[in-house]
């Protein structure tokens, strides 16, 4: 039979697992300072992540979704975006969010059960963490459409997981973005697992990047543990979007080194060996190797950085722990622009019975 359509999915990697160059260094990466900025943020993110898990273990934080192993993918996204762009995350993209100005204490407040964590001091237009998987992709598409209609040179970026690619909303967003040539980039962070469901039970598609073909948009797979490849791929996709040449689907291949969340016990469903192997490919390792080999980084720098990160994280934790609980009225006061009568009455009831439920 004759062929009426053909497609290919490209793959990008710049640094291999040992930090050796396997393809040309992109322009930005020729400036060591640029690479150090990425590395420092990856380190800060990991330091924060470790601390957050400890806070949860010691009862000072609620369920927390770790980003261990995702640092390159997340930081690469954040570093490629402009402040005026819009980020629609899922729930573990701290590396990208820190780059955009989201505060560590905001992350802690959110997982600590306080909506004020979603009231970002910076990136005011970014979407908050999104737990209902898939829905955020449509918000990104809508944001991109708003920018396009207003002729603003802004892009929207959403992140979803490998499991999330099974959701109809994900596909609907891709289809919309492509048919309207929206300034959007859809990132699939493929960390191989959706809680306990391995990729092999999630989809039969060989890559997740190829899901772009269904929408008629370009898809590319990138080594998500290679922060240089990640940032460059995002910059290319964003530039294309900004110039009105339409959206891109980026699959970042990485691995979830942690449990799904602190409420999960991954040992129930995956092999120790698999995780140990994954550790050999983790993202900080290779960029550090590369920086050290190129003489831009030393053990002393490493120690200093770690100390600095710890100090900054500790300060954020202190700020978080010092935040008093919101007054019960907060439950009502942001429901509508102005409070309907029926709610005003309930608001009084809530005040009357404050603390009667206990459990604090």
């Amino acid at each position, binding site marked *: 039979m004759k062929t009426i359509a053909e497609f290919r999915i490209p793959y990008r990697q710049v640094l291999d697992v040992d930090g050796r160059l396997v393809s040309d260094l992109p322009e930005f990466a020729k400036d060591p300072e640029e690479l150090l900025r990425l590395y420092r943020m990856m380190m800060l993110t990991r330091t924060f992540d470790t601390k957050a898990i400890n806070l949860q273990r010691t009862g000072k934080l609620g369920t927390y979704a770790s980003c261990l192993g995702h640092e390159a993918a997340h930081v690469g996204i954040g570093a490629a975006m402009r402040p005026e762009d*819009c980020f*629609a995350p899922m729930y573990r993209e701290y590396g990208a969010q820190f780059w955009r100005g989201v505060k560590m204490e905001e992350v802690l407040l959110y997982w600590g059960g306080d*909506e*004020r964590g*979603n*009231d*970002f001091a910076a990136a*005011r*237009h970014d*979407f*908050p963490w999104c737990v*209902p998987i898939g*829905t955020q*992709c*449509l*918000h*990104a*598409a*809508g*944001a*991109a*459409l*708003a*920018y396009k*209609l*207003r002729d603003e040179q802004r892009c*929207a970026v959403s992140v979803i997981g490998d499991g999330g690619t099974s959701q*109809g*909303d994900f596909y*609907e*967003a891709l*289809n*919309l973005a492509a*048919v309207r040539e929206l300034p959007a980039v859809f990132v699939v962070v493929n960390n191989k697992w959706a809680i306990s469901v391995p990729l092999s039970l999630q989809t039969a598609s060989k890559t997740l990047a190829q899901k772009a073909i269904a929408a008629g948009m370009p898809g590319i797979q990138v080594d998500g543990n290679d922060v240089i490849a990640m940032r460059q791929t995002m910059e290319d996709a964003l530039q294309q979007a900004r110039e009105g040449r339409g959206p891109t689907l980026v699959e970042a291949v990485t691995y979830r080194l942690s449990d799904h969340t602190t409420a999960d016990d991954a040992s129930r469903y995956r092999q120790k060996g698999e995780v140990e192997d994954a550790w050999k490919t983790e993202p900080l390792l290779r960029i550090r190797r590369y920086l050290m080999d190129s003489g831009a980084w030393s053990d002393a720098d490493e120690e200093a950085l770690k100390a600095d990160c710890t100090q900054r994280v500790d300060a954020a934790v202190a700020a978080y722990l010092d935040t008093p609980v919101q007054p019960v009225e*907060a439950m009502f006061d*942001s*429901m*509508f*622009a102005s409070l*309907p*009568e*029926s*709610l005003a009455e309930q608001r009084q009831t809530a005040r009357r019975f404050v603390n009667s439920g206990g459990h604090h």
Partner: protein
Amino acid sequence: MPKITLIEGVTMALAWEMEHDDRVVVLGEDVGVNGGVFRATAGLQQRFGGDRVMDTPLAESMIAGMSIGMAAQGMRPVCEIQFMGFIYPTVDQMINHAGRLRHRTRGRLHVPMVLRAPFGGGIHAPEHHSESTEALFAHMPGIRVVIPSSPRRAYGLLLAAIRDPDPVVFLEPKRIYRLQKQEVEDNGEALPLDTCYILREGDDVTIVTWGAMTFETLKAAEELDKEGISAEVIDLATISPMDLDTILESVEKTGRLVIVHEAARNCGVGAEVAAGVAEKGIWDLKAPIVRVTGYDTVMPLFRLEYEYLPSVARIIDGVQKTFED
């Protein structure tokens, strides 16, 4: 002043607001060149262009989700769901995001969107084209549900809905889209939300209803008048949040309450009206509260649909029940 139908009131309100607010965009399936399957958006794309009046791909969750994204980024999307039977894929986006975004971001982001949909039976439409499930949306915190029952209210309430900084589900009773003409001045004047409209004053019984059923209810009220029963007819208009005070005042006067709606009875909005009065106005009641509603069945295909819809006779019977002892 032009005499217009309810659906023309919708079109007129959309046109006015698009003319006066660049942020307003209309989107949905077949809303463009075709002007909507009921013609609610007729002429708008020709007038405002394809960027302001957009035909979307066929996906309702997408329509709601993209509208939320647009609204959160400063637009005022008014999206159309072609029939209420196809509104259910929007439920996730509406309850989990439209109604929550302001709350969960402490007001940093909000969702000034309107989700329009024709609803209700009685036009001999195919399967899934005659639903009345306003109760589903009325139960969602953070979302307003508004239903007009006249050309004037269609115009005024839709303007208010579009201008409201929070999400509004605007349900249009398609059975009366073209039933009645009213003089409506195209002056951009909105009508208040969150309040009932008293369609007919009376002393002996309060009948609360909304949408297309206001017509059968008013007919019933005329009939009852001949029997010497004076019925007050209240159009709930904003289904949620509900203006219970107006209803309580009326019941205080009449002592009797009948609720009429087309939707299935079980956990319909009528239950909330009854519960509210049973809590705050029970001592005013001289009779049990009566609900005259659609049955707890699937809306039948059209050969039987008028057996499903509350008839004038059933409403009269319901009122008479409140005079038995």
